[in-house]
């Protein structure tokens, strides 16, 4: 019988208008890896924030027992001192500081004058990074790393804390396959050394691979008890999460390839920090009506830069030609792209996709604001009507149209972003990692939506780092590596090995 | 105005109603100079002595827009006459007009309100400040140097301030008059700042290799900055460099006593404030009497619109020899404060 290290009893957490946690009971054994799963907005992150002191007592109700001792943290520091570490869902790092300082923020080793012992700091940082098999100079400015590496630094930061309980809130959404492997090795080692792990993810295959047991949250309450991973199937877990069966994860429809719509030629984007380096290097491709074009590659391959260049983000700094329906476009800013019927769902919805402290209506009508206003006045009724229509159509879960979108769960936020671009009625819809961080149920809904759009004649381009998704949804796949296009594969020739081969740099034929 | 006032106000006309009380307004431009407390206290003392029921006192932080508001507020409070020292002589005529529209007389205090039909003007002849400083400087040159020849620094107050302009004009006239006088520095100082004046003087001394003979400042604070810059060069000696200020602040009078500064212009406050109180109370009592019957007019000064009946009180030059007879005799400073041991 495993020894219980943590018990959370009758936890209730309210936000204005929402009860995020409704009497949750939760326990964790010493040395187990527990997967915490649930739909977007189920309350997973909130529960962990309660545990780690982000929400101090008494902003929540209920009791937390650590080794049968009642604990009430005032802040994150107290939780850390009690041995609870957390890697938050969002990166919590400072891009202007070095890797080492990010890891040991406010925990620098000091000399007797209160001065920082830099050498020791770097040395300590190296040691922690080495545990993750990361070979980077701890003096590097964090902002110079790829998002994936930054995520690893975040993990290193938590590892450095010497914790007994370590929470991973969706740690892999920005990691490459090999980084994930590395991480899993470390997690297993930690477990073996007696650390208890809580692991949150929307990627079912990860759960299957790493977890010992599973707890499912839905609408702020646990569904059933903790179960041993060996005693359930994935389908059962999913069913518990969404309350229904999802039989077909990639409900792809077949369409007939239509006319060539978007054609881009020789797109290049120089690295702003090193003009000699190219983030996107001479990439050309075409997209067709009635097709989904997938863009695959490893993290940092330059896919985001490619679509940003098409969307006019770099202005005159990027090069290349863009044709839409045979007409050459002159795109110098996103406004030009939108005008010409190109829409981009950006990968970072919080920073680049949404006005977090504005309501749904304002967010959804922003790019198409012109069609809801004359020179003199906005037509508020019309924009509400349209927003309402898309909330229904996309099945966005929200108390009302007037809620600030920051209050919505990740999946629903993502749907708001997609909705905002659907309203523009664009010919080309580019989706950059459209399912990152959203739950299985929401994922299938996004896929259904993509199908529907293709059916309506929209040209869809999707960037994704998840191979099953790319293979499941694309008609054709462009593979990139280090800024270059390394392959363009038909659906039939695209299997996991082939894509990985090109993604890791094998420069195949065009 | 008691509870029923607003209804009367609403239905009746809006002429000032007479409450039978004698209310005198006194509106200064600021309280942020040494002298103004003395203006206020002397005025209130005298006005009450002469039978004013209420003195409404206020000042305007050197802000002409704020002064306008405060003036309006005094009218609202039912002042029968308002004594006004304008923040800006060029932008104050509207207050006079407003007062006259409500049947309230305006006594112009200290500096002349331009382009208005103000009732009477009481002044210590503030444009004479610069002239007096100039005269004292010429006298000093003659006594110490035998000839009126040398480098002069003019330290002006706030750029664009109407008084600073008036004071400076007197100095400029003197410099113009004497060929030997060479105006080497002419600089304004935001906020009448003594530290800026000190920097200006330091820079002037550097540039002219200490060949500075006279520093004339628009007020005491500026002069004290100059004295400090001179001290650093061991030149703060009233025989070596002429330094003139105006306002007779305590620090400057001490400098004069110590022989570090040459002269200060002392605008005697009490005679001016007393006279103003007297005129104001009399005007309030007999609002229809011609001004000439109320007070002795010294001269008539053109302000662009009318010849303003003007009463002039004395200003004097304070030097090392007459400290006791001027600022001390007048009760402006105590002898003990001035000659306090270091």
């Amino acid at each position, binding site marked *: 019988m495993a020894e219980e290290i943590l018990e959370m009893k009758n936890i209730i957490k309210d936000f204005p208008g929402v009860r995020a946690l409704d009497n949750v009971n939760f326990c964790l054994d010493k040395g187990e890896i527990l997967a915490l799963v649930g739909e977007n907005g189920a309350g997973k992150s909130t529960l962990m924030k309660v545990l780690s002191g982000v929400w101090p007592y008494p902003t929540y109700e209920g009791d937390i027992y650590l080794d049968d001792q009642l604990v009430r943290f005032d802040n994150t520091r107290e939780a850390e001192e009690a041995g609870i570490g957390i890697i938050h869902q969002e990166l919590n790092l400072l891009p202007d500081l070095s890797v080492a300082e990010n890891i040991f923020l406010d925990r620098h080793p000091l000399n007797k004058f209160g001065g920082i012992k830099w050498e020791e700091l770097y040395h300590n940082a190296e040691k922690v990074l080495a545990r993750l098999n990361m070979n980077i100079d701890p003096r590097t400015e964090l902002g110079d790393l790829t998002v994936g590496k930054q995520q690893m630094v975040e993990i290193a930061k938590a590892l450095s804390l010497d914790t007994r309980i370590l929470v991973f809130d969706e740690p892999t959404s920005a990691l490459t396959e090999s980084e994930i492997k590395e991480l899993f090795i470390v997690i297993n080692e930690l477990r073996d050394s007696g650390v208890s792990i809580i692991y949150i993810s929307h990627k079912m295959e990860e759960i299957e691979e790493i977890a010992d047991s599973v707890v499912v949250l839905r609408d702020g309450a646990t569904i059933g008890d903790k179960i041993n991973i060996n005693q359930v199937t994935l389908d059962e877990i999913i069913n518990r999460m969404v309350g229904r069966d999802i039989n077909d994860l990639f409900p792809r429809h077949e369409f007939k390839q239509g006319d060539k719509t978007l054609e881009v030629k020789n797109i290049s984007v120089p690295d702003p920090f090193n003009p000699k380096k190219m983030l996107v290097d001479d990439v050309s491709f075409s997209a067709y009506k009635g097709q989904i074009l997938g863009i695959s590659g490893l993290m940092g391959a330059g896919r985001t830069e490619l679509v940003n260049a098409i969307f006019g983000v770099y202005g005159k700094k990027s090069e290349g030609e863009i044709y839409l329906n045979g007409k050459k476009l002159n795109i110098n800013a*996103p406004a030009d792209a939108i005008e010409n019927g190109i829409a981009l769902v950006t990968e970072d919805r919080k920073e680049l996709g949404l006005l977090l402290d504005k309501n749904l209506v304002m967010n959804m009508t922003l790019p198409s604001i012109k069609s809801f206003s004359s020179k003199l006045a906005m037509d508020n009724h019309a924009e509400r009507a349209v927003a309402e229509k898309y909330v229904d159509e996309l099945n966005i879960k929200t108390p009302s149209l007037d809620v600030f979108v920051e209050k919505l769960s990740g999946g629903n936020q993502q749907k708001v972003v997609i909705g905002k671009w659907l309203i523009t009625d664009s010919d080309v819809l580019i989706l950059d990692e459209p399912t990152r961080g959203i739950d299985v149920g929401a994922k299938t809904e996004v896929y259904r939506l993509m199908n529907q759009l293709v059916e309506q004649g929209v040209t869809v381009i999707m960037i994704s780092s998840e191979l099953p998704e790319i293979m499941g949804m694309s008609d054709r796949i462009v593979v990139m590596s280090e800024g270059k296009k390394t392959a363009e594969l038909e659906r039939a020739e695209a299997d996991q090995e082939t894509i990985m081969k090109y993604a890791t740099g094998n420069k195949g034929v065009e | 105005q008691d509870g029923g006032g607003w209804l009367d106000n609403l239905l009746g006309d809006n002429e000032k109603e007479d409450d039978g009380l004698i209310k005198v307004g006194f509106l200064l431009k600021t309280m942020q100079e040494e002298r103004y407390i003395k203006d206020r206290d002397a005025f209130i003392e005298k006005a009450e002595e002469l039978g004013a029921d209420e003195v409404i006192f206020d000042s305007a932080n050197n802000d002409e827009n704020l002064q306008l508001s*405060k003036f309006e507020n005094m009218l609202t409070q039912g002042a029968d006459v308002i004594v006004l020292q304008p923040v800006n002589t060029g932008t104050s005529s509207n207050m006079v007009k407003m007062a006259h529209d409500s049947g309230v007389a305006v006594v112009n205090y200290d500096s002349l309100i331009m382009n208005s039909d103000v009732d009477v003007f009481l002044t210590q002849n503030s444009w004479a400040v610069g002239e007096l400083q100039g005269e004292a400087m010429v006298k000093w040159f003659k006594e110490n140097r035998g000839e009126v020849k040398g480098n002069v620094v003019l330290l002006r107050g706030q750029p*664009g*301030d109407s008084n600073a302009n008036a004071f400076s004009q007197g100095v400029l006239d003197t410099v113009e008059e004497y060929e030997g006088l060479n105006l080497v520095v002419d600089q304004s100082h935001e906020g009448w700042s003594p530290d800026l004046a000190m920097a200006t003087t330091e820079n002037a001394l550097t540039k002219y290799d200490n060949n500075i003979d006279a520093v004339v400042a628009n007020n005491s604070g500026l002069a004290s900055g100059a004295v400090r810059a001179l001290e650093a060069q061991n030149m703060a000696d009233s025989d070596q460099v002429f330094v003139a200020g105006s306002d007779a602040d305590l620090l400057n009078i001490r400098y004069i006593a110590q022989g570090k500064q040459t002269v200060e212009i002392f605008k005697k406050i009490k005679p001016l404030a007393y006279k103003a109180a007297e005129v104001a109370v009399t005007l309030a009592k007999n609002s229809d009497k011609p001004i000439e019957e109320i007070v002795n007019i010294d001269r008539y000064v053109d302000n662009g619109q009318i010849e303003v009946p003007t009463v002039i009180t004395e200003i004097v030059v304070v030097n090392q020899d007459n400290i006791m007879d001027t600022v001390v005799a007048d009760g402006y400073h105590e002898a003990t404060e001035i000659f306090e041991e270091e």
Partner: protein
Amino acid sequence: MKKFIKNNGTFIALIVLVIILSFLSPSFLSSRNLTNLVRQVTINGIIAVGMTMVILLAGIDLSVGSTVGLSAVTVTLLMQAGFGMWLAILITLIGIGGVIGFFNGFMSAKFDIHPFIITLGVMTIARGLSLVLTQGVSVPVTNMTFASIGSGYIAKLPSLIILVVALVLGVMAVFKTSVEMKSGEKVRNKAKLTGGLILTVAGFLAGFFIFIGYQGIPIPVAIFAVIVMIGIYTLSKTRFGRKLYAIGGNEKVAWLSGINILKSKTMVFVITGVLSAASGILLASRLNGASPNLGTGFELDAIASVIIGGTSFMGGVGTISGTVIGAIIIGVINNGMSLLGINTFYQMIVKGFIIILAVMIDVLNRRETA
């Protein structure tokens, strides 16, 4: 009701202030004093309307005070040089206000320099320019009609008509905005309706008491009212206003959604410049002359009004009606303390505390709601 109080902390603070003052000073609540008070508020209020937009964009404009001074001087000098009044006003609004605003907005948006530093520079430059133009000497107004803009009144009868029209329009607007969509159906929000009606009628009665009780609506107040109404309309009902909230909320998101940031930002500073110029012109007219130092420090009162009125320094959140309340609070403090005969030195201390307090009440109130 509770919600109303929580959302209108500053408004309540204003009412409390007014009640206290009317007990302390008998003349405070007279029509005449309130007419003065409202007119005194207009100079700062007009600038604060522009400042609201600037701060909505997470910007700041320190040059408004100098623009007031330079505009006052320019319009006066132009008339002296023989230009007709309207032409002089037009040239000043565009040539001073517009150009300064354009420089502020364009430079900060185009080169991504914080407007604090651009407008700090311009603040000094514009002040220097008005000193140069006047040679440091104040300039009298030579045009009689001009002086009457700042001190004139709309006669009582037309004033009454205006108030009644405003009442009718206000009631109509309340009826219109109290309709809400609830699951696709139009329903009337009763609380909103009665609340709105009470406020509108109270506003009308106050206007009647203040203006009809004295000499009618002062012309500067009428101008201010029109500017405020246009401002409120612009922010809440037009595409341009919507864009400002979006940019203030998250500039990058707004840009990626196709909004031209440079244009909007420049426009906002131009508006603020023109409003400051208008304020300067009114001030010259009220003072019947212009001096180069006019407007010194006005930026602080304008910013304080905006912040007291609930606009966030971080951008994206705020309203012009809030700013108007903020400006009135500052006006009431100044007017009240002056009526009470409080020593200017103590006035400064009290004013400082009240500014802090007003913002604290608002913040704490909202925190509780949130």
